[in-house]
């Protein structure tokens, strides 16, 4: 219980610690190398609304290419993100700000990670939770026992939730809808899969 209290305690309220089933959890939703992941993106940042297309593809074992474009098709940013690597291929002047790049890099890395090292595991009647250390933060992966689907990912410090990713309309290793909600800044990103 002490551990629970020290790690964003309310996030794991009602959960109890169990043994770790597997040391590594393979992320299901963006890790198919042959797949073009194309989503309509709606972004709300401090009350301002932005929209466009979010495009991601795993281009090799350790790296994703991410492009964000307007509806007209012009690229606003183009990144390559791996677990320990990061490259900016291009970014428009309006977005070329340290804070924006850092936030988007962290968000994309969180959502696109191929696997998470599981340090601890918790459960209640319906869900299990894998806890994975990530620098000075923790990632908590919430999985429905019945379907084995990842439905929520919480990035937290020892005391507070920082980012909450919610997945819905999940089927066949594809999340058709996901929401990235920030707790410390007013930034929400909603992604809806486009059947291309």
């Amino acid at each position, binding site marked *: 219980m002490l551990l629970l209290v020290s790690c964003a305690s309310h996030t794991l309220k009602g959960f109890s610690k169990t043994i770790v089933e597997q040391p590594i959890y393979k992320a299901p939703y963006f890790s198919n190398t042959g797949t073009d992941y194309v989503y*309509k993106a709606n972004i709300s940042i401090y009350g301002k609304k932005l929209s466009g297309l979010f495009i991601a593809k795993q281009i090799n074992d350790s790296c994703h290419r991410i492009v964000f474009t307007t509806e007209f098709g012009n690229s606003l940013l183009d990144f390559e993100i791996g677990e320990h690597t990061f490259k900016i291929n291009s970014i428009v002047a309006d977005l070329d700000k340290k804070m924006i790049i850092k936030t988007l890099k962290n968000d994309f890395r969180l959502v696109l990670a191929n696997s998470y090292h599981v340090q601890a595991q918790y459960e209640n009647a319906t869900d299990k939770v894998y806890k994975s250390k990530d620098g000075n933060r923790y990632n908590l992966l919430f999985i429905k026992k019945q379907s084995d689907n990842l439905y929520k990912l919480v990035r937290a410090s020892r005391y507070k939730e920082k980012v909450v990713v919610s997945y819905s309309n999940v089927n066949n290793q594809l999340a058709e809808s996901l929401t990235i909600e920030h707790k410390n800044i007013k930034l929400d990103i909603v992604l809806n899969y486009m059947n291309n």
Partner: protein
Amino acid sequence: MKIKAYWLILLFCLSGTGTFAQEQKMAESEIATFKQTVNSVSKKIKTLTTDFVQYKHLDFLSKDIETSGKMFFKQPNLLNWKYIKPYNYSIVFKNNKIFINNEGSKSSVDMGNNKMFEKINKLIVGSVSGDMFDDGAFVITYFKSKDGYITRLLPKDATLKKYIKQIELVFDKEEGIVKQVKLIESSNDFTKINFKNKIINAKIDDSAFNN
């Protein structure tokens, strides 16, 4: 061996239909005639309605991203660019303002103090009507092929150049109207828009530009 060679030739013919298509530089006199035709046609356009299909090409993707919709244009500067598939998103240029309707969520931007939007507006209207040959912002070259007349516009402006390497307009030979726009980015990725079912000078109610 013979069979192999046959397939190779066939493959070349098929893959070459786009790039192989005999493309020639236009002579000065042809350019003058072509410009005159396009200008007189675009002057006659009071309204224009057309369907469009947009292909976003990124080299690392296995398939182009396809979106489609309708475009409404009314002189002098009312424009509604409306995506219908696979999502509803429309952008209206009206009275120096931009109105966006993104799946029911509405917003607007004042163009009065935004030079970039003004340029975009001019670019879109110009691309659709073909009336951009007197635009000093581009270096323009002219070509002809079996499929139509092709103009290639290279931006002079350093800021625009960073985002757009080249704009290519393909004109229908008979009508003198743009049938394809291709925007090539500095990375060589591009957006290609094909227009079809064009209706010229039909009555368009102003409400078509309410967003």
